[in-house]
């Protein structure tokens, strides 16, 4: 511990003399300082996170239509209703399908982009920026471009124009659930929006792989390309991959914006949050059932997160103890 040498490098701004005053005694107190720093945050967390969750659990046991101070206790009726509600259960199916498509495709595409960009020697920053740029665009704006320009079902629109070149008739991308072309619209929009972000994560991880590993593999006769990728790159990216998959899953679970905007006024393709939005804030204003739905979703996501963390060995961030 070479504190004496370090002291010489202390910034000059720190050298000001303390002012004497009534705060002197408190300033040294650790407890006081702890609450001074964390108090505002913790108070907000209590009011705007814990109380709503608690209130939501409370409301879920009451019949609460158009009111947030209900009087009629109904026990588990709201939960029973939600679990036997076809629309709500359908939204869970929609989420499962969505997650099953979007998580692997985003993982693969962002890793692929990272591998490409990582090998570039010229214009690397340029290409990285291009792939990263869509991260700045909102889901609403992307939905608008997708719905009104690329996948416009009527007669113009890029996708139908391109298909027209091959003599394929117009496809009603969003207006018809059978065949479910709307999935193509939703998945491509989200891929475009989020791949750049995960590419940055993979790029950072790729640059952390020690070069010796590749040298050693080359000496051992591993062929460059597929073999090195499979036996070195991929295992070295394990921690990042796990985290990316977890983040993607949580993000898919919260999908709302593009479903809400792309599939306005349709009865198909409603993920859980859209369904909840219509139950709680639509014409019914049913806070009781809406809250029950929120509780069910929260329990589900906690289970999935914990379960996945267990399976994929997400124990690295546990230094917190």
């Amino acid at each position, binding site marked *: 511990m070479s504190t004496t040498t370090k*002291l010489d490098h*202390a910034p000059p701004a720190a050298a*000001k003399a303390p002012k004497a005053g009534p705060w002197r005694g408190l*300033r*040294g107190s*650790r*407890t006081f300082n*702890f609450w*001074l*720093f*964390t108090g*505002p*945050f*913790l108070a*907000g967390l209590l009011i*705007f*996170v814990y109380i*709503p*969750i608690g*209130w*939501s659990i409370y*409301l879920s046991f009451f019949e609460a239509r158009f009111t*947030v101070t209900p009087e009629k206790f109904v026990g588990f009726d709201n939960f029973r209703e939600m679990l036997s509600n076809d629309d709500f259960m359908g939204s869970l199916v929609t989420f499962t399908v969505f997650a099953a498509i979007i998580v692997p495709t985003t993982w693969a595409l962002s890793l692929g982009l990272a591998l*490409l960009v990582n090998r*570039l*020697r010229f214009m690397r920053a340029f290409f990285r*920026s*291009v792939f990263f*740029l*869509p991260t*700045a665009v*909102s*889901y*609403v*704006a992307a939905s*608008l471009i997708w*719905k*009104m*320009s*690329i996948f416009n079902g009527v*007669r113009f629109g*890029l996708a139908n124009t391109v298909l027209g070149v091959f003599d394929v008739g117009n496809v009603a991308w969003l207006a018809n659930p059978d065949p479910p072309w709307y999935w193509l619209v939703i998945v491509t929009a989200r891929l*475009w929006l989020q791949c*750049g972000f995960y590419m*940055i994560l993979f790029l950072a*991880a790729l640059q952390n792989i020690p*070069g010796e590993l590749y*040298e050693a593999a*080359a000496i051992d006769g591993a062929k460059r390309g597929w073999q090195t990728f499979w036996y070195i790159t991929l295992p070295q990216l394990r921690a990042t991959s796990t*985290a*990316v998959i977890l983040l993607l899953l949580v993000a898919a679970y*919260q999908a*709302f914006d593009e479903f*809400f*905007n792309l599939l306005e006024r349709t009865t198909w393709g409603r993920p859980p*949050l859209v369904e909840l*939005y219509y139950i709680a804030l639509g014409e019914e204003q049913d806070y009781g059932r809406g809250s029950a739905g929120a509780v069910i979703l*929260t329990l589900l996501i906690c289970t999935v997160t914990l379960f996945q963390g267990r399976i994929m060995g997400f124990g690295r961030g546990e230094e*917190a*103890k």
Partner: protein
Amino acid sequence: MTTTTPRIDKPRGKRRGGVMSSTGLYIATSVAAVLFLIPFYLLIRNSLSTDQEITGSDWQFFPTDIQWSNITEPFDDPTVDFARAMWNSMVVGTLHTVGVLLVCSLAGYGLARIPYKHANKIFYAVLVTLMVPAAVTFVPSFVLVSSLGWVDTYRGLIIPGLFSGFTCFLFRQYFLGFPKELEEAARVDGLGYWGAYWRVVVPNSLNFFAAIATITFINGWNAFLWPLVIGQDPSAWTVQVALSSYMTNQTVNYHLIFMATAISILPLLFVFLFLQRWLVQGIAQTGIKG
């Protein structure tokens, strides 16, 4: 971090792909890049075209006459007060960012650096909230905010979003790695925790603050669900809610809608151009370490 070893590797082993594979690499990357840029191009193209050229049967990739006058149209539109929505987003995005940085950084520092006997329990109480995604609790949050009478107000749009457990967690992790000697020196010189924080810790952490600020601003600007729930009156709409309302309007005015979208993205593109270095660095550092 001294990663000098890969340099030996680069000229010989790894990079012996030859002209062919390197050309292939650039072709593949360029194709991907063009695909990623097409939506931007369509947005700009359509926002500067007439409706005929957007919806006409002979769709051209390049429009023939560019309508610069489209630029002011969203601001003169009587159905949606677009200028108001842009202003609301500016106010909400800025105050949201400032608030999150202030509240979460202080808490992160307190949790990382100030010894207190219950600090661990409190930290777990923060971690638990990470398990419950904020979006899932929008119903109860709305119930709370509406009973406070904050619907259609800036308070309602901004304050509930300030207390991000995740951002607090990121700050805590960052401050755990901050060189302790600097603060100790400051405290030997007579500054308390508060003084040391503002005069030594913050000035030496500006890169990290800039990274978090950029990410927070982008998320605040692009947020949709919460502003949709809170902004019931058009005067409280943020730009995202306004854009969404265009899509459901009875009359569809294509060039105006695309121009409004393009304008709504502009501030973020500026943020990107000027702050990309911090943003990339921040994501790489905080997204997950390792």
